[in-house]
C-alpha cells in the first residue's frame, strides 16, 4: 500500500491523546442531586487515580478512529504491477513550426533555442524525436534513430536544425499534429508521451482537421508559443480581378492590418516604379481593404508594400502578360481576307488577341510547312496529308461541299448534298453539355433563335454507329455540327458556313464564343492562369518534359508526368518544348494573419494540453505524483476508510452512551 500524502500518517500519533485522557488522574466529575446539604460537609476532592486503563473498549475505538482518520487523510492507494512498471521516462516529440510567419523578427532563433532547451532537458533514457512542419510534417529525428544512437543525438539534431530555415509555406498545424500522432511507434508504448509544440501559433493556422480525429488520451501537448516584440503587421494578397479576360485588367489587392496594430501608414508601389505612381494611404487597425494596384508603367512583376515591420508578406508577384500563340490556318486564298463575303474575313476579325491567347491567322491554299494548331477548310479540298495532320493531334474545322474529304478522314460511308429548299433553318437541338460547345453551357447563352441558316448541306451518314457525333441539328432534323475524334486530333464538321451567304452565324454573338471554345478544346485555354500559392503544384502538361527555373534561378528538369510543388514565392519560369511561361507564386494569404492564438484554443479540438506544472523543466517528480494521484483517484480507498471510521465512531457513541448510563446512584 502506498500513500499520496504520507505526512498525514504522523497524525496517527494523536492516539496518545485518548490514552493519556483515559489514564488521567482526574477528580470524579459525577454530579448527584440531593435534597439538602444541611448535614453534609464539603470535602477536598480526592483525584481518582487510574493506574489501569478503564473502558478499554472505548479507548480502543477512539484510537482506531484516530488511526483511520490519519490513514484516510494520507490517501492510500495500491500500486498495481502495471503502474509500477510504467517507466518514469518519456517519449517526447518536438514539433517545430517553420512556416513563413516564422520569418518574422528573431522567431526562428527563438524556436531553435526552445527546441534545444527541450532537448537538453531530456534525460538520456528519454526518447526524443524532432519534426518540423509547415503545410506538412517533415521528420528530422525519429524515435527509431533516437533509440539507435541516443548518445550523440544532441549534436546530430543541432546540426540538422542549423541547416533549416523557415519556408514560405502556410501553417497547417492540424495536419502536422495528425501526422505526429502515429510517429510515436511501438517502442514508446510504455513511456509517457508528449509533444512539445514550438510555434508562433498564428491565427492563420489551420486547425479544422483536428476535429476529424480522436486525440489519444495518453498523449499530452505542451505549447511553447513564441512571441515577437510586436505582432503589428500589414499584409497584402491578390484579390479577384474584375474582368480576367482583358489583358489590361486592373490588379486588385486585399490589404489587411492586424487588430490593435499601431501601424497605419503604408505605401504600395510596383518595384522600381517612380514615386509618383505609388499609393500612400492609411489603414486602421483590424481593417481589410480592397485596393486597385497603382499603374504599372514599368511592367514590373512585384508589387511591394512598405511601412510594415514584418516584410515577409509584403510582396505580391504578378506574372507579366504572356499570351500563347495559336497558329490558325485557313485553307483558301489570303486575298479574300478583306472581302466581306468570304469566311476568312470573319475569322480574321473574330480571332483577336487576348490576355492569354495570341492567335496568328494565316491563309493559303496549301497546308503550312509547320502544322497549324487549328485548320479551317471551307468547301472542297484535296485530302492529302490531312488525315496525318489530324491523327498527330491537329484540329480541323471544315464546312464540306462534298463527301470526299469526310470519307477520307472518317472512313465512313456518307453523302453530302446541298439542301435546296428556300426556307431558312434554325438550330433545333444543341448539345450544350458537349466540351466543344462549352461556352454555351450557361443557360443565359443558349438562345439560338436569332441564328438563321440560309443554306446548308445535308450530311447523310449511312454507316451504323458512326464515330461522327452530332452536336447540333437543324429544325429539319439534318445535322448542323458534327465532331469526331480521329487519332489524337479532332474533326469538326459544319453543315453550313458562318459567312453571310450561308448563315448569320458569323454576325451573331455566338460566333466568337464558339471559336474560342474550339481553341480551348484544342488546348489553348484563354482562362488566365490561376493564382498560385506556395505549396501548389505548377500546372504542367503531363505529356511534356519541362525545365523549371525557380526565383533563385535554380533549374529543375522534370520528365513528362512529373509534378513540381512550389516552395518559394516569386516568378517561376516553366519551359517546355512548345512554349515558355512565367508563373507567379505568392505567399498564402492566411500566413499574414499573425496574431497569436491562445494555446487553450487547441483544447477546444479535444487535444490534451499539458498543465503549467507539467511544462516546467523539473516536472519529473510532479509526473510521478500525478500518476500516483491518478491511481489514487481511480481506487478511492480513502472512501472505505471513511466508511469504517464512521462505523467506529457510531460504535464508540453507543459504547460511551452505555457507560454514561452507569452514572453513580444510591445503591
Amino acid at each position: 500500500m502506498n500513500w499520496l500524502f504520507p505526512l498525514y500518517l504522523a497524525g496517527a500519533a494523536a492516539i496518545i491523546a485518548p490514552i493519556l485522557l483515559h489514564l488521567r488522574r482526574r477528580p470524579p466529575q459525577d454530579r448527584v442531586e440531593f435534597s439538602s446539604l444541611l448535614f453534609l460537609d464539603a470535602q477536598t476532592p480526592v483525584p481518582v487515580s487510574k493506574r489501569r486503563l478503564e473502558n478499554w473498549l472505548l479507548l480502543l475505538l477512539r484510537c482506531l478512529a484516530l488511526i483511520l482518520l490519519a490513514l484516510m487523510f494520507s490517501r492510500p492507494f495500491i500500486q498495481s504491477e502495471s503502474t509500477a512498471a510504467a517507466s518514469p521516462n518519456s517519449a517526447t516529440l518536438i514539433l517545430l513550426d517553420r512556416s513563413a510567419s516564422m520569418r518574422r523578427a528573431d522567431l526562428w532563433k527563438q524556436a531553435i533555442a526552445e527546441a534545444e532547451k527541450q532537448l537538453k532537458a531530456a534525460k538520456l533514457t528519454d526518447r526524443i524525436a524532432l519534426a518540423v512542419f509547415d503545410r506538412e510534417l517533415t521528420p528530422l529525428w525519429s524515435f527509431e534513430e533516437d533509440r539507435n544512437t541516443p548518445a550523440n543525438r544532441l549534436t546530430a539534431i543541432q546540426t540538422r536544425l542549423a541547416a533549416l530555415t523557415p519556408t514560405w509555406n502556410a501553417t497547417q498545424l492540424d495536419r502536422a499534429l495528425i501526422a505526429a500522432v502515429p510517429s510515436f511507434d511501438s517502442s514508446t508504448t510504455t513511456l509517457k508521451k508528449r509533444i512539445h509544440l514550438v510555434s508562433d501559433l498564428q491565427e492563420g493556422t489551420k486547425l479544422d482537421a483536428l476535429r476529424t480525429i480522436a486525440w489519444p488520451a495518453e498523449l499530452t501537448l505542451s505549447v511553447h508559443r513564441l512571441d515577437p516584440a510586436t505582432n503589428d503587421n500589414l499584409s497584402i494578397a491578390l484579390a479577384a480581378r474584375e474582368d480576367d479576360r482583358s489583358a489590361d485588367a486592373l490588379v486588385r489587392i486585399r490589404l489587411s492590418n492586424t487588430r490593435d496594430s499601431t501601424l497605419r501608414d503604408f505605401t504600395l508601389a510596383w518595384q522600381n516604379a517612380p514615386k509618383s505612381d505609388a499609393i500612400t494611404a492609411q489603414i486602421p487597425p483590424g481593417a481589410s481593404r480592397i485596393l486597385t494596384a497603382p499603374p504599372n508603367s514599368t511592367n514590373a512583376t512585384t508589387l511591394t508594400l512598405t511601412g510594415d515591420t514584418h516584410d515577409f508578406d509584403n510582396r505580391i508577384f504578378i506574372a507579366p502578360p504572356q499570351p500563347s500563340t495559336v497558329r490558325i490556318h485557313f485553307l483558301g486564298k489570303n486575298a479574300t481576307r478583306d472581302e466581306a463575303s468570304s469566311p476568312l474575313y470573319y475569322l480574321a476579325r473574330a480571332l483577336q488577341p487576348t490576355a492569354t491567347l495570341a492567335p496568328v491567322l494565316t491563309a493559303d491554299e496549301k497546308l503550312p510547312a509547320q502544322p497549324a494548331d487549328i485548320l479551317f477548310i471551307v468547301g472542297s479540298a484535296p485530302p492529302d496529308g490531312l488525315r496525318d495532320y489530324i491523327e498527330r493531334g491537329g484540329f480541323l474545322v471544315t464546312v464540306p461541299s462534298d463527301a470526299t474529304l469526310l470519307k477520307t478522314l472518317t472512313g465512313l460511308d456518307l453523302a453530302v448534298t446541298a439542301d435546296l429548299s428556300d426556307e431558312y433553318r434554325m438550330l433545333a437541338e444543341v448539345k450544350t453539355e458537349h466540351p466543344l460547345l462549352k461556352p454555351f453551357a450557361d443557360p443565359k447563352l443558349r438562345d439560338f433563335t436569332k441564328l438563321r441558316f440560309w443554306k446548308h448541306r445535308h450530311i447523310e451518314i449511312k454507316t451504323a454507329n458512326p464515330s461522327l457525333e452530332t452536336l447540333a441539328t437543324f429544325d429539319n432534323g439534318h445535322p448542323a455540327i458534327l465532331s469526331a475524334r480521329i487519332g489524337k486530333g479532332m474533326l469538326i464538321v459544319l453543315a453550313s458556313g458562318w459567312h453571310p451567304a450561308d448563315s448569320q452565324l458569323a454576325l451573331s454573338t455566338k460566333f466568337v464564343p464558339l471559336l474560342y471554345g474550339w481553341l480551348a478544346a484544342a488546348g489553348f485555354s484563354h482562362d488566365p492562369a490561376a493564382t498560385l500559392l506556395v505549396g501548389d503544384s505548377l500546372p504542367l502538361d503531363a505529356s511534356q518534359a519541362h525545365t523549371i527555373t525557380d526565383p533563385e534561378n535554380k533549374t529543375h528538369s522534370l520528365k513528362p508526368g512529373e509534378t513540381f510543388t512550389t516552395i518559394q514565392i516569386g516568378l517561376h519560369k516553366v519551359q517546355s518544348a512548345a512554349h515558355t511561361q512565367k508563373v507567379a507564386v505568392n505567399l498564402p494569404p492566411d500566413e499574414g494573419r499573425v496574431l497569436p492564438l491562445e494555446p487553450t484554443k487547441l483544447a477546444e479540438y479535444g487535444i490534451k494540453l499539458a498543465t503549467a506544472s507539467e511544462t516546467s523543466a523539473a516536472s519529473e517528480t510532479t509526473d510521478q505524483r500525478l500518476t500516483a494521484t491518478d491511481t489514487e483517484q481511480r481506487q478511492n480507498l480513502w472512501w472505505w476508510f471513511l466508511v469504517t471510521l464512521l462505523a467506529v465512531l457510531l460504535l464508540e457513541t453507543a459504547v460511551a452512551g452505555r457507560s454514561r448510563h452507569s452514572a453513580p446512584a444510591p445503591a
Partner: protein
Amino acid sequence: MPSATFLDPAALMRIKSLELRAKVVVEGLWKGMHRSPYHGFSVEFSEYRAYVQGDDPRYIDWKVLARSDRTYIKKFEDETNLRCQLVIDHSKSMKYGSQSYTKADYAATLAATLASFLMKQGDAAGLTTFADGIEEHLPPRNRPGHLRRIITELERPAKAAGTSLDLSVGQLADLLRKRGMICLITDLLAPIEHLEKQLALLGAMGHDLVIFHLMDRAEIDFTFEKSAHFRDAETGAERFIDPQIARETYLKRLQVHRDTIQAATDRHNVEYHFCPTDQPLEEVLFDFLSARQRKKASKRISQTV
C-alpha cells in the same frame, strides 16, 4: 393492622390520578375500620346557651323558643366540626426521590388522602402550600367540589424555591384565625430554631398541630457509595462528598436534627409523625388516626381528672 396488606407506595404512585390514589387509600382504610376513630371528637358537644344581647338573632333556636318561651342560641353543627388545614411543603427539596416517586408525590398523595378521608367524615379540609412563603391557600370547607379544588391544587407543580419554615408558619398563623387542626406535611430540611417559636404560636392560638415529617430512604440511610459532587436541590450549591467518609457524620447530624424536632414537638404538644416515603400510606393514616384517638382518650381522662 399487618403491614403486609398495605399497598406498596411505589405501586400506588403509579396511579396517575391523585384523586384516585387518595380514594384507593381511604377506601382500604375505611374497609378495615368498624368504627370511625374520629367519631366523638370530630363533632364537638353542641349546646344551647341563653341569648344575650348582641348575639345574632339568626342563631336563636325558634323551636325551643316556641316550646319553652326562652331564647336560646343554638351552636352550629359546622362550627363544632373539625377544620383541618393541610399545609404542604412545596420547596425544591421535596422534589427529591431516590425511588420512582418523589417526596412531593408522597406528600400530595398523603394530603389528598387526608382531605378525602376527612371530607368523607363531614369535616372541613383546607390546603396551604408553601415554599419560601405561602404559595396557595384554600380555606377549610366541606362543600361538594372542594375536594376537587384541593386535588387540583395538589397536582399543580411545585414552585422552585427553598424552604422557609418559620416564615411560612408565621404567615399561616395570620391566615388561620379559627381554631382547628393543622397538618404540616414537610421534609423539615431547614434549620428549625425559629420553627419552634412558630409552633408555640400556633399552639397558643388553639390549633391542633400535626407534623408529618417525610424523608426519603436515601436521606435516612445515606446509601450512596461513589464519590461525587452533591448538589443541593434548593440552593444549587455543590459540595464534593465521599459518602464513605461523610456517612457517619451525616447520620449523626440527622439524628440530632430529628431529636431536636422530636423534642420541640413534644414540648409544644405537637403530634409528630415520621414518615419514610417507602412507608405505606394506609399505615401513616392508621398511625395518625390511632394517635388522635389516643390523644382524645387522654384528653377525656385529663378532663375527668
